[in-house]
């Protein structure tokens, strides 16, 4: 356990070293959130759309943004860079489990991410006048599901990043993944508003557990057994992807080419 906690701390420090960088990136994220709030404010000025009024949409957008922000440190880029330039060879010699080590690195951003989310939430409450507050049960369900988002996103990112064993360019892969996750998680637009040919795949893919599930629990759209079912789906996807990643990792190692020494 200790070495992994060490990696996590190191990753946090690494992020804090480039404070200005992180700050500017967060400002970029905040303007994105402000932009979507403005778009939806204009859209919802004539009445609700698909069951979402302005108050609910505000909460939805915040959760969508927060679920995009959490667990999104630079861990995937560090991993990709080390695979592409061959440094991964030294990672393999360390007496650590590669997947757990990368997981620790990814989670190094959590502290700064929670602070940023808190600031964004405060700003929205302040400038747009209030926020929907769920009951205690729904709040608890939401908290559990939101915490599960971090490992789920890690598993998806980790599997995607392993594409670097086969391609030379991580940027395109990362972008394509971001586009797909944004669409099918519900971060682009609530899944209920998608046309049927997209809502169908969205319902069976793991991405809905990233944004749609925590949002449904927060807004009270899923209660009781339905809420527990959603949490179970989330947990099952984490396990499936976590162990699936191990299978891919075994194949990926065989594809690894490192030139020179």
């Amino acid at each position, binding site marked *: 356990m200790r070495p992994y906690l060490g990696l996590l701390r190191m990753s946090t420090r690494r992020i804090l070293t*480039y404070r*200005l*960088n992180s700050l*500017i*990136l967060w*400002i*970029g994220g905040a*303007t*994105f959130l*402000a*932009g979507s709030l*403005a*778009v939806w*404010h*204009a*859209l919802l000025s*004539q009445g609700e*759309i*698909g069951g979402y009024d302005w108050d609910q949409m505000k909460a939805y957008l915040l959760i969508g943004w927060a679920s995009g922000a959490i667990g999104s440190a630079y861990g995937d880029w560090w991993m990709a860079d080390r695979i592409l330039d061959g440094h991964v060879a030294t990672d393999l010699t360390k007496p650590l489990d590669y997947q757990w080590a990368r997981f620790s690195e990814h989670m190094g951003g959590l502290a700064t991410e929670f602070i940023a989310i808190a600031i964004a939430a405060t700003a929205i409450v302040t400038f747009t006048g209030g926020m929907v507050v769920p009951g205690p049960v729904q709040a608890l369900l939401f908290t559990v599901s939101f915490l599960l988002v971090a490992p789920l996103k890690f598993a998806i990112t980790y599997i995607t990043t392993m594409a670097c064993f*086969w*391609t*030379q*360019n991580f*940027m*395109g*892969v990362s*972008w*394509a993944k971001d*586009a*797909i996750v*944004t*669409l099918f998680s519900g971060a*682009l*637009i609530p899944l209920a*508003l*998608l*046309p049927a040919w*997209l809502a169908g795949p969205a319902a069976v893919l793991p991405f809905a557990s990233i944004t749609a599930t925590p949002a449904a629990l927060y807004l009270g759209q899923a209660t009781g057994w339905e809420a527990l079912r959603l949490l179970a789906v989330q947990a099952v996807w984490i396990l499936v992807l976590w162990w699936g990643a191990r299978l891919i990792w075994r194949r990926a190692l065989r594809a690894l080419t490192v030139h020179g020494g």
Partner: protein
Amino acid sequence: MRRTLRIYRRSLGAHLRAVLEYEADFWILVVAGLLFQVLNLIFLSAVFSHVPALNGWSFPEAVLLAGTYGFINGLGPLFFEGTWRLAGKINHGELDYPLTRPAPVLVQVVSAGIGMHGIGDLIGGGAMIGWGLANSDIYWSPLRIGGALVLLAGSATILLSLIVLGNAASFWVGGNHPVFAMTLIRTGDMAKYPLSIYGVAVRAAFTVLVPYAFISFFPASWLLGKESAWIGLLTPVVAVYCVYLARLVFRRGLRRYDSAGH
């Protein structure tokens, strides 16, 4: 001038050949670029299936606006991608090489790379423009076609200038990644929707402070004959101003460059 253009073309061509060596990467990037334009389209079509208009903009008009923004944004990676590597060059002291070569530093910097995702943006954005134009109510005349092309060129100039401007900030910000430029350009993404949906502060900032609105909103407003359409005609003037500003900031920054001291 001709020599400069030739250097630019040769440098870009060299990077193009290098990029095309990796065929799989080429396709991944093109598809990734295209996916983002498709996302915009899905968002708009999902929204407009529930509302008839967004602040007076119909679905085809909104698609035209978003498509223009996407198309213009595709030009950055295709023609100015090298600019994004400026921060890394400063950080590693690699700007020494362009400085010692007998060619303008800025030209060497902007042509030091090519991003194939721009092709995806051009295809996606272009298709959206075409569909939007075909389904919007526009009275076409030779003057209008000419005007539209001039404004499009102006928009492209503004965006490319902003890319140079934002990346030149790396001379002051430091660090390995061009975070300032990323934020500057990403904030502009708000301009893919009609500007009128935003509050007064954003509208003012996007018009006067950083002229994102001239990249797509004002030119499209002129073409569609929206409210205060004449502002769109200022696009070339704003473009000239942006070029001047980008050059100035880059030169100022270059003077601050102090290598890495190997």
